[in-house]
């Protein structure tokens, strides 16, 4: 197994509480949760609202629209990223409010091309037998 570490990007392993999220990404859906008690959307998946602690929460499909909130550009490859250095590791803010870590694809990985608050839209990339949300520049605005 240690040999594989250098060939494949790390794959997430769902837990029972996150399974619905990862089922969604395989279908090309970015699913987030929303609290029925306080109305706020949140990420990462868990069965209670981090804003008001209610367990009356629901799943919904996010629009996939987001903005580039912050990022850095790694010059040292993590396992599986050797062909991509330097590559950006970013945090995006979804239109619904929550933020998440991701990669930015379809754009040069440079400070000039990666402009904070630029408009993005979700895409999906494989990681092992899972699919993870990544984001690419969104042209229409």
């Amino acid at each position, binding site marked *: 197994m240690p040999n594989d570490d250098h060939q494949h*990007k*790390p*794959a*997430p*392993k*769902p*837990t029972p509480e*996150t399974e619905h999220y990862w089922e969604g990404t395989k279908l090309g859906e970015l699913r987030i949760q929303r609290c029925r008690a306080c109305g706020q959307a949140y990420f*990462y998946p868990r069965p209670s609202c981090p804003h008001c602690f209610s367990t009356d929460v629901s799943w919904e499909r996010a629009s996939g629209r987001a903005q580039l*909130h*912050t*990022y*850095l*550009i*790694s*010059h*040292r*490859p*993590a396992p*599986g*990223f050797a062909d*991509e250095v*330097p*590559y950006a*590791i*970013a*945090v995006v803010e979804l239109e619904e409010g929550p*933020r*998440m*870590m*991701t*990669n930015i694809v379809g754009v040069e990985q440079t*400070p000039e091309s990666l402009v*904070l608050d630029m408009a993005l839209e979700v895409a999906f990339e494989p*990681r092992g037998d*899972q699919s*993870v949300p*990544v984001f690419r520049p969104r042209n229409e605005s």
Partner: protein
Amino acid sequence: MNVRAGSAIVGAAETTRIGVVPDVSALEMHAESARLAVADAGMKMTDIDGVAAAGLSPIAVAHYLGIAPTYVDATTVGGCSFLLHVRHAAAAITAGLCEVVLITHGESGRSRLGMPPRVADPTSPQGQFEAPYGTLGPPTMFPMGVLRYMKEFGLTHEQLASVPVAQRKWAANVPRAMFREPLSIEDVLASRLIAYPMHLLECCLVTDGGGALVVTSAQRARSMPGPKPPVYVLGTGEAAETPLVSMMEDFTTSKAFRLSSASAFAEAGVGPQDVDHLMVYDAFAHLPIYGLEDLGFVGRGEAGAFIAEGHTSPGGSLPMNTNGGGLSYTHTGMYGMFLVQESVRQLRREASAQVPNVEISLAQGVGGMFMAAGTLILGTAAAAGV
């Protein structure tokens, strides 16, 4: 219960060697610094009834030393763990749970001798929601908010680079510091990029070393004085925000820094204007900037200019990271122990780069990537009013 000045640090020591120590295991570094700190306190190992450690278990440390403690604290929340150990020891001593607590750190961060293996758990929140995007250790996570901070407050790359430059000025006077040669902003910006916007010289060292503290009641410190002046624990704080850097509430400020320091200032009954000497955990160059603002030493967006103008450098109004910090002195991995060691040295008037008239020193630790924080406000007998 009055925790303020109810306890004191009466013993403090670092391992004989720090930096590159390829022939001593992590556990022996805990033990060597423990023996030195107990001797520094003028005590015997049999005086110790409490043991706290992070990185390795306090049970392992205690047994290795040959003692069976009746108070243990294995709080492990990253590099600030030892500041929390002091806080917990102060409370436990005040409550009568124990009398003399030994707090140890030892880490073979560079040589990796006797270190627990690093394990990635793909089911953890980090394994599911961060690792798939190519994170590789602290440099790819800790500086996540820097570009946001730059956009919101106009921090320049030159101002960020002035942090290691300022600290190198202190390190020049510290023989034990790993790097002591003068550094210019141009040198920093010419060093290779590790994770843009962070250059190599804006990232901490990776070293081997250890340190230990002995904490006891202020009453015992007075009735059974050791060879060194007691350093009183005036105020303490701790806080936790998030295990995931990507979930920080605001990328331009640390909630854990704010909560932890507010608690310490309230307990000590002092404010930033009363602090003579400051240590802010500097795993990366942006941490002192966040620290100065989150602790209230300067206003929001002012810290970059404050450091660049020399106010934290030798001769400045707010001496900060006077051992050279994690950027120049040493950084074993859980560097927080060395913050406290330098605060103690300054208050005892025995620091290499001694600042005149230090009565109150504040040490601000961070754990993980802005995951947690610990704050200690320490003072001389005069500051403690005892």
